[in-house]
């Protein structure tokens, strides 16, 4: 194994251990819920960054896979009476299939057109969910709760078990994404982002690489949807609405797209802002809008990108001085 891989693995194990002992040190229902939501949205935003940050494909339709995750898993649990791991596997498989079909149509298109076509497919799914009332519950969403059969001693009806489950998935998915981004595959994607023509001349099959990234990102995003379905005990059409994809993009932009953990930082920032601003003031939009405006016009990049650049600049200056 390469040294970097070992280091990533070590960081992941430490982060996982910290998340596991956290509830016994600091007991708070709010914090537990926060981490579960953080896991759902964090996986979602980080998977989108495989497209936005690494491959340079700005997808406006990523919420599609959050929804296939939540609805696929919810429907399987309600109607099929199968175990949770099997349902998860099937859901991720189904989302990958959706991503394969949608991606095959979309990834040929350039920048803004790619963004719009993915948005169109996501909104089609949204309309389908709203219109297909007998299966999805339409506007009301998939209600009635999810059965949660115990597996391997894990009872997801208990909030503490759901916490451990979500935190583990978060760390695992981040590790997968990190691995994807650091392998030759990831560097090929960066090459495509920076110069698709050059990649093409070097013999890279740009279409297939983009498609592979799209399928990987979609599959991983569906895991976020599964966690969300478990957290809210159902699935709602809002998951497939374009605001969902918009929020993921804001998370990436707030946290930074070039630093690997940027989207996670962005998720935390947006969730904290959401929670605290709604609690402190009724002028939620005004406050959040002003904060985002300060971020964008002040930093002009995501928080972690800004910090990383500042550190790099400082090092450079120190290097010049010495």
């Amino acid at each position, binding site marked *: 194994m390469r040294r970097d891989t070992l280091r990533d693995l070590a960081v992941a194990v430490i982060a996982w251990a910290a998340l596991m002992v956290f509830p016994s040190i600091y007991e708070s229902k709010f914090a537990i819920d926060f981490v579960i939501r953080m896991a759902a949205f964090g996986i979602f935003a980080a998977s989108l960054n495989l497209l936005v940050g690494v491959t340079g494909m700005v997808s406006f339709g990523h919420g599609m896979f959050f929804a296939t995750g939540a609805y696929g898993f919810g429907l399987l649990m309600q109607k099929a009476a199968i175990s949770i791991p099997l349902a998860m596997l099937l859901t991720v498989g189904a989302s990958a299939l959706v991503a394969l079909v949608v991606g095959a149509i979309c990834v040929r298109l350039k920048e*803004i*057109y790619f963004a719009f076509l993915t948005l*169109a497919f996501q909104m089609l799914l949204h309309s389908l969910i*709203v219109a297909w009332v007998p299966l999805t519950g339409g506007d009301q969403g998939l209600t009635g709760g999810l059965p949660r059969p115990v597996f391997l001693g894990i009872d997801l009806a208990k909030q503490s078990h759901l916490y451990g489950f979500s935190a583990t998935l978060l760390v695992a998915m981040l590790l997968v994404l990190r691995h994807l981004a650091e392998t030759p595959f990831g560097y090929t994607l960066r090459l495509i982002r920076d110069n698709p023509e050059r990649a093409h001349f070097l013999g890279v099959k740009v279409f297939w690489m983009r498609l592979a990234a799209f399928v990987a990102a979609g599959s991983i995003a569906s895991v976020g949807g599964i966690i969300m379905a478990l957290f809210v005990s159902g699935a709602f059409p809002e998951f497939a609405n374009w605001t969902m994809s918009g929020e993921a993009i804001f998370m*990436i*932009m707030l946290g930074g797209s070039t630093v690997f953990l940027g989207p996670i930082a962005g998720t935390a920032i947006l969730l904290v802002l959401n929670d605290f601003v709604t609690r402190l003031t009724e002028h939620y*939009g005004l406050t959040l809008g002003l904060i985002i*405006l300060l971020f*964008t016009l002040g930093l*002009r990049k995501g928080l972690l990108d800004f910090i990383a650049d500042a550190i790099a600049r400082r090092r450079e200056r120190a290097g010049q001085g010495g």
Partner: protein
Amino acid sequence: MDFATLANCLGSPACVVTQATSGLIIGMLLFLVAAGLTLIFGVLKVINFTHGAFYMLGAYFAYSIFRVTDSYTLAVIGAALGVGLFGLVFERLFMSRVYGSNVLMQLLVCYSFILILDDAVKLIWGPEFKSMGMPPTFMRPPLFIAGGVVPPFYLFLIGVTCFIGIVLWLVIGRTRFGKIIRAAAHNPGMVSALGLNTEMIYGLVFALGGLLAGLAGGLAAPVRSMVSGMGFSILIESFIVTVIGGMGSIIGAFVAAILLGLTRSFGSLGFPLFVDGAMFLIMALVLVIKPSGLFGKEA
């Protein structure tokens, strides 16, 4: 799904006339908003996500001016000028700072303004639905065309928007200002090298876009109820219009807006739950077959 209702309607001239006029109203208002959006994109290569909020501001401005002056004409003109000015200020003070950076940064600036304006509207005009009411001039009995009911205001609206569309087309196609705009869309560097102030052109284009959106908001005020966040759906729809018609094409926006308006009004009979889906389906089809849109130039 209720295709029988749709088939019945298509069989009766009265129903066709009623649905077609309401479809045209939706389409023409959409055209005004989308024309501004497509114009701004054509010249600045920026997608103005706040355009729906501009429309909302137009409607509220018209509401207040109508309350004070009792004149619908003044209300519409005031709404257009007010939002045009707002567009200019918005571009100069905020958007112009993020042209060079990531597209997503522009999106964030716009998003923050959507949030701020929606909340500001709630603060100033209140969170509840507002309705301006029909101006007295148009309070007359409806006309009957082939048995279909057509309110006089609808005819006025169609006439005015058509007129504005033609004026816009002439301004862009025939005047010096239009020539400069087209040149700036084509090659801003050259325009700047020829001694024209591109920054001012950008500001003016944004103002023109805002003017059109404000106009649409003001014209729509008597027939639409107003609420904070009302710009959202029209923003999405005008996106679809610009994509179908081709980014930067005014004619394309016109055709696509009418197409979408008719899809909406007839679709609400045949497939009420899937009207939005149908619009996105059309957009997806166009993007797959001709990504640059029906009237767009090949990129």
